[in-house]
């Protein structure tokens, strides 16, 4: 599934970029995040609870950040698996300064799901992904204040 979109943050790109690499902030911003720890340079381990229609479960996941190009872009690679199946995502995030001194974050990515989550939740995945991403940026925006 292809995903793309953009969100506004009220901080300049340098700060936005830094926030999106900060484990403490990420742990607060990622919806359903139950634990997040840095395991290596640009690698994190995360536990995330997700609810999708009649499915719910905790995903154990790895997040990797690559192609770092501060403060304007980086690549996010997510892999998680849990009772409802697995999820894999790969996305490129672009940060651009906007006229109000804030940042527009735009993303393009590909998400793959498997197992029960695909068999049962496929219809809702698109909508759920959008909601989760919106929540993430809303919380990130809250952290910025």
């Amino acid at each position, binding site marked *: 599934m292809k995903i793309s979109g953009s969100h506004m943050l009220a901080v300049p790109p340098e700060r936005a970029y830094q926030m999106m690499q900060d484990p403490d902030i990420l742990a607060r911003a990622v919806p359903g995040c139950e634990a997040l720890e840095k395991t290596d340079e640009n690698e994190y381990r995360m536990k995330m609870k997700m609810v999708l229609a009649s499915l719910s479960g905790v995903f154990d996941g790895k997040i990797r950040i690559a192609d770092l190009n501060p403060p304007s872009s980086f690549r996010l690679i997510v892999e998680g698996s849990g009772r409802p199946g697995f999820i894999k995502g790969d996305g490129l995030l672009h940060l651009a300064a906007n006229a109000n001194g804030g940042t527009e974050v735009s993303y393009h990515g590909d998400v793959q799901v498997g197992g029960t989550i695909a*068999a049962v939740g*496929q*219809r809702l995945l698109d909508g759920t992904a959008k909601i989760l991403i919106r929540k993430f940026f809303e919380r990130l925006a809250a952290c910025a204040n």
Partner: protein
Amino acid sequence: MATTIAGVEKEKLVGKRLRRREDPRLITGTATYVDDIHLEDMQYAAIVRSPHAAARILSIEIAAAQNSPGVIAVFTGKDTEKVGGVPCGASLPGLRVPHHNVLAVGRVYFVGHPVAVVVAKDRYMAQDAADLVEVNYEPLPAVADPEKALAPGAAPVHPEWPDNVAFTFHQDGGDVDKAFAEADVVVKQRITSQRLIPMAMETRGVVAEWHGADRQLNLYTSTQIPHLVRTLVATMLGLDENRVRVITPEVGGGFGSKLNVYAEEALMGWIAQKIQKPVKWIETRRENFLCTIHGRGHVDYYELAAKRDGTILGIKLKIIQDVGAYHQLLTPAIPTLSVLMMPGIYKTQNIRADIVGAFTNCMPTDAYRGAGRPEATHGIERMVDILADELQIDPAEIRLKNFVANDQFPFHTATGLMYDSGNYAAPLKKALDLVDYGKLRQEQADARKQGKWIGIGISTYGEICAIGPSPATPAGGWESATVKIEPSGKVTIMTGACPHGQGEETTFAQIAADELGISVDDVLVVRGDTSIVQYGIGTFGSRGTAIGGTAVYFALQDLKEKIKKFGAVLLESDDVTFSGGNVVCNKTGQSKSLPEVAASAYRAMKLPPNTEPGLVSTRFWEPPNFTFPFGTHIVVSEIDGQTGEVKIRRYVAVDDCGNRINPLIIDGQVHGGIAQGIGQALWEQAVYDDNGQLLSGELTDYAVPRAHMMPWIESEHTTTPSPVNPLGVKGVGEAGTIGCSPAVVNSVVDALSPLGVRHIDMPLTPEKIWHILSKGA
């Protein structure tokens, strides 16, 4: 001793619309299914299944599951390596059969592939612990589409066969090259028959019980073939066949999906031995979507050669069969049935067929209601309509022109069959009269002027039933019956044709009641226990009555002879007849009732010459041929121009299944068959994404027709008895499905023909039709 005077001839029950005797228990919740079996200290199994369509298993962590409350054992593929592979019963030259372990070893090949099994005190504990099994996978590229699987560079499903070819099959009949060379017109079309999910109301389920002291395994399983399951599971487990008892209680639907031997059947048998306790596994609905065989899965390339007057000269067909990751019991045999059926009921003697079976990272396909014949019927009935359109000939007329004529029976087809009997024009004419065809075409023309999308679809189908003579059937094609007249005169029939909704408890009792001149209430039909029933092949391929019923019939003939002999002794006369349930002395008119005769046969005070005591006969009846039912279905559909929704305005089904034993049950079979045919034509589709993930994995995503979505079915019949069996019956279990889908699709294509539409692949969802309308307008 009382003597009774023989009464008037009892009214015949064969042909009567008797209500099914099995229904009261089925509709009041008092019947016993596998999940109703409860044994002392029984444990529950939950299976860990792969979420990947293709992956290497790097490691499996079971410690957390083992320590979970209530868990008594966790097994993985390493533990079960000695269990024999899941069997493929069909054979073809050059067939590639991958070894199919009951639990995956090293690699998984489809989503749902069993990887580990957790056994616990109750079902919930087992499932909770199964969630704790951590399997570390290395995902590999997968392929889920049969045509993509055969393309160069496709991911290999089984690395040892990088071309993904599971088998090929070729058949030539007549001189197809000459036919195409002499043709005025050749029409070509790619036609698909999409993957379907059989969706029995009762999912699969197994209870296994091991009696160590006797080395005896009792296996309760929801199957169409208890004896074949016994033979094959015994082989997989290395047990003596006579120490495995398969018990099949009530079966809540199969449609071919339980004409199989599954990994879980052997696995539970193996676990019961390991844990020395009974174990139960009941398939969840989600597992049923993923891990019970799918049906259809064809991509067909048709070419039809014809003369300008509509005479069909020859047919070429290339079938690409989506096999899935493995062969289940009959997987490779299914498309060969399509080839046998490819000429339909038309007399062309020139055919060429090629099948390529393609491995994909999906659940295997296998027999689903009609099994190969719906695909072929859909193809030929679509092609005949396309030809009619090309030549601007009425679709009814072109069919009449090409039918095998009544004086050509028995008719030898180009595919090697011998059609037993037929009168193909009769149901077509009857159906045309029922819809008032001429007037209907006029109404259609008028409706078009008002901007309405009305279509008329005709399907004149034939099918291969009563499967089948043993040389044509992988496990033997006969069926058995034991008829036992008890000392009280009550009659017990033990049939090997284990039913799962076919109503044999009623139809077989009707046959016996007529033959013996007794009431159906005096007859008990027993099935589904390998320790009670002699042996049997099972119920599939519309064979229950035509073969199993015939075995009952012949056993009854043996008993009638013996009854006469014992009656003659009692009446002290050589000149007796047996009728109306009494043996009557033709000289004196004195008679003895069946209970009196039966009692004397067991008491055995005085035996007739060369006669053993008792009244039991067992027959294994081998049919000399298949039977070939046929019929016409006509659909009148209307398309909503705004939404693309197809509404079936009229459904007329005229079916000829030979002699009719219970027309009420036949109507039920036809209705159910049509429901599944309409399901395929309009709504149902098993969808895998490019990575082999099943997307239609729940009833919210897989559109099985509900009762309110069904049209009113106007069901009629013609009767052309079969000469193949003495009952003159042909079989009707699959007729509705086989005749249906082309009638529906032909009607929709007819409705959209003003837009130049010539073919639409199933399912004809509103979205698909809406797009066609949008483009056309």
